[in-house]
């Protein structure tokens, strides 16, 4: 797995949790939100296996609702565990970005 794929994988998971923070959305809604931010998704379909894993990990819960326009829709929302994980992931993300930025600038100065 390439470095960018690895990076995107973690970032996409975090982005999905952010999209769901305070919202109850079905899969297509999440995709539409993420489409607004370039570089997060290689393809729309990548979101769905991640949603399935987040559900298996207990970070999100789902409810199925009938739709007048098509098949039933599965709505996702964060669980308490998901909200706590999001806080932890945000802290880790900020620490990571700040460290890399710091190192990048230090490297630039040294060069």
């Amino acid at each position: 797995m390439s470095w960018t794929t690895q990076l995107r994988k973690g970032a996409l998971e975090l982005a999905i949790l952010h999209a769901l923070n305070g919202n109850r959305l079905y899969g297509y809604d999440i995709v539409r939100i993420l489409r607004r931010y370039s570089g997060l998704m290689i393809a729309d379909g990548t979101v769905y296996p991640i949603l399935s894993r987040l559900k298996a990990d207990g970070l999100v819960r789902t409810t199925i609702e009938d739709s007048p326009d098509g098949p039933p829709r599965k709505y996702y929302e964060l669980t308490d565990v998901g909200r706590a994980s999001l806080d932890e992931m945000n802290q880790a993300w900020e620490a990571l970005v700040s460290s890399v930025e710091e190192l990048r600038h230090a490297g630039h100065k040294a060069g």
Partner: protein
Amino acid sequence: MKTWTPDASEHFEAWLGRVRLSIAGDPSVNADDVAQDLRAHVHAELEGMPEPVSVGALERVLASLGNPSQWSDVAREPHPNTADWITRNITDVVTAWQQKLADDWGLPVLLVVLTLFAIPTFDWIGAPLLVVAYFVARSCVNYSPHLLVGRRRLMIYFPLAVGAGLLTGLVLGFPLSFRSVSAEGYRNQFETLWVLGLWWILVGIVAAREPKHVRTALKPFAETFDTSHGRMLSLIGLAFLIASSVVLMS
């Protein structure tokens, strides 16, 4: 809900089947969950498109979803140890092989040829071939529902029908392997019927207690099998037992 052309419906089911294959090797992902989301996604994307939905319109939506094999790369964890790495790679090879054959008539034709070859050579060569054909066909029924359309379904069901028939025959006729039905006179045939009746009573009791195992063993031909069918088999066995006892005692 929008109407689709039959071609578009079949194309979508085939694509969903390939998605299932692609993510089948990833235990952290539930293929049914993903398929359900994808159905809702595709229908939502097709809103506003003219009816009936054509293969071309569907293809554009599927293209935006991307190649399912890339999704599992995104969803999968890195390989934690050698055993997992080997398992994952074997799964990948089998999946790729099945996917390749599933795109056309390759797999159904191969299964029919294997089974047809296995029947007349049913001994050291035919039996293993039939077992292979049977289990590949079973895996198609479980993991490649998009193949189960029209004649392809009949071709995939063929080894399953042969296998289920053999299994049923072997289980129900098990006592016959110890007794000769053909000759040795009139009395011997009723003794055989007596043993067969007793055996069917026992098999019927087990089948009535565990109908789920019967359905699994004979899938997809015994989907409606339940306790009452097991009891019916026991009753038939009882009828054989009583009738043969009457004859033998007279």
